[in-house]
């Protein structure tokens, strides 16, 4: 085999075909257009938009971001333009892209999710929806949909009935048993899982002695959470057979490989986009190079190696 062979990086996630296994995390890539100054998002295997809600949302009061050791804590509060403006202003750009375009959907009630998904249904330029179940559930008193198997499954089933599009459910890691939730949403119709969302966290400002974020509680992302994210993905890989998009602290190609060996079928870059917007492209190159150096013809043969090895 010559050194210059082109490894096949493509991967199938349920009904979605990605030309390479590198996507970007919701909330870290805007609506796609913001990155076109840096590179053409069509180079990505997939992209996920900022979560979209029924009504426009202003977001939380500042400060919205604090740095912690190897991590960042955010409380953006799903600031977004709302589904109507999204369809009018943001989808036209998505339609120009040659990649898998995933729209993240959020809401405070089951009805809100369903309504947003119905409005997206049948729109050119949208290939799949990702349900962000980490939003506070207003009806259940502020806990998020994603922390109870019952509410996560009910929400998934309702959205499933509302759309024929490929359905991704994005799991919250703030649970005792991720596999319980994962099974519930897959049984309810999720075709692909994506995880992890951020970890609940706070920081205190020593000077004011108050919580450092305007919204008090935030979500931790970045390299600090990588070993925690890997744990959750590995649990699912050990016990279930479902395509998983892995994320949480991926900064380098080696980080991405860790997720793949742990069982992720594809990976998504989040916080790293803020620091080096070219991270996803560097990772695609790294994976290609890794496959070449290790004579891996098909990227997919690397998925879940860590599981195979412990039997």
């Amino acid at each position: 085999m010559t050194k210059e062979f082109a490894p096949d990086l493509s991967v199938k996630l349920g009904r979605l075909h990605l030309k390479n296994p590198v996507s970007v995390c919701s909330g870290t890539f805007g609506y796609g257009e913001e990155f076109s100054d840096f590179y053409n998002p069509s180079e990505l295997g997939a992209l996920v938009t900022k979560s979209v809600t029924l009504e426009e949302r202003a977001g939380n009061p500042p400060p919205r971001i604090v740095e912690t050791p190897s991590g960042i804590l955010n409380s953006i509060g799903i600031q977004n333009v709302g589904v109507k403006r999204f369809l009018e202003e943001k989808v036209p750009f998505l339609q120009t892209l040659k990649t898998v375009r995933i729209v993240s959907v959020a809401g405070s009630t089951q009805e809100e999710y369903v309504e947003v998904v119905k409005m997206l249904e049948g729109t050119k330029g949208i290939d799949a929806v990702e349900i962000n179940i980490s939003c506070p559930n207003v009806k259940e008193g502020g806990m998020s949909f994603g922390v109870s198997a019952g509410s996560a499954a009910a929400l998934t089933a309702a959205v499933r009935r509302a759309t024929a599009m490929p359905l991704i459910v994005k799991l919250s890691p703030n649970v005792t048993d991720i596999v319980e939730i994962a099974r519930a949403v897959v049984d309810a119709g999720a075709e692909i899982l994506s995880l992890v969302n951020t970890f609940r966290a706070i920081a205190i400002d020593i000077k004011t002695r108050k919580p450092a974020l305007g919204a008090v509680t935030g979500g931790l992302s970045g390299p600090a959470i990588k070993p925690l994210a890997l744990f959750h993905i590995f649990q699912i890989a050990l016990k279930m057979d479902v395509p998983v998009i892995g994320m949480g602290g991926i900064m380098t190609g080696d980080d991405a490989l860790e997720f793949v060996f742990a069982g992720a079928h594809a990976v998504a870059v989040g916080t790293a986009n803020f620091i080096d917007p070219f991270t996803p492209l560097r990772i695609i190159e790294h994976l290609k190079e890794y496959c070449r150096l290790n004579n891996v013809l098909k990227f997919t043969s690397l998925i879940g190696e860590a599981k195979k090895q412990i039997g």
Partner: protein
Amino acid sequence: MRKCEMGDGLFEFEIECLQIAEHATPGQFVQVRPAESGNPLLRRPFSIAGVDGKNLLLLIKQVGQGTSLICRKECGEHLDVIGPLGQGFPVPCEDKKYLLVAGGYGIAPFIFFTARHRHAQGEILYGAKTKNEIKFFAGHFSDMTSSGWNVSCITEEKIDGKSGLVTDLLEKDLCIRSEYEAVYACGPVGMLRKVAQIAKNYNLPCLVSMESRMGCGFGVCLSCAVPIKTVGTPVYRLACCDGPVFRSEEINWEKL
């Protein structure tokens, strides 16, 4: 990259980057990466203090971990910079006079502004904590003067028995002069708030350059929210791409 320590933890950086130097306008900023290793993770924003051919001038004050790491870099080392970012100050009208108010390293965008807009003229009011700071900028101040800008300084530390805030200078100046087209201000938020108030009292348009914690600097993380005056539900605009320069009457100062 070349750097030079001015003293008291204040550094002047010269960075070769044609791409940025060509497109930069006064009031815009760049995002500098403090550490490859990832602690701290995020880039740090700095106003562009000037361009010189393909070089970029920055003034960086050491205040925490990120700025310390940047200021510890050696001459010749590569600095990872993204920019130019944000909306700067509008181009001044040739026949109008402007009042520029700066506190501390807030002088940075005005060094660029006065160098770029030699045709315009007006007054620069500069407030510093210590008399040292005034010395550091002596060279820049004389450049400004020769570009047709008049510079007045004040310090919190007593010099010849006098001391005070830049907003005191502003009050005094506006008391005796009224020919200004607008006030442009850059500095700590407390100073900006007061400048905005004073400009309003004198019915002058006022633009302020707002600082905010920034996750990305290019409009995707939504962390640099600046509260905007509205009735009803709060509205935020983004310091990194809607700003950092805002009209002062737009800003909801109470929520800051």
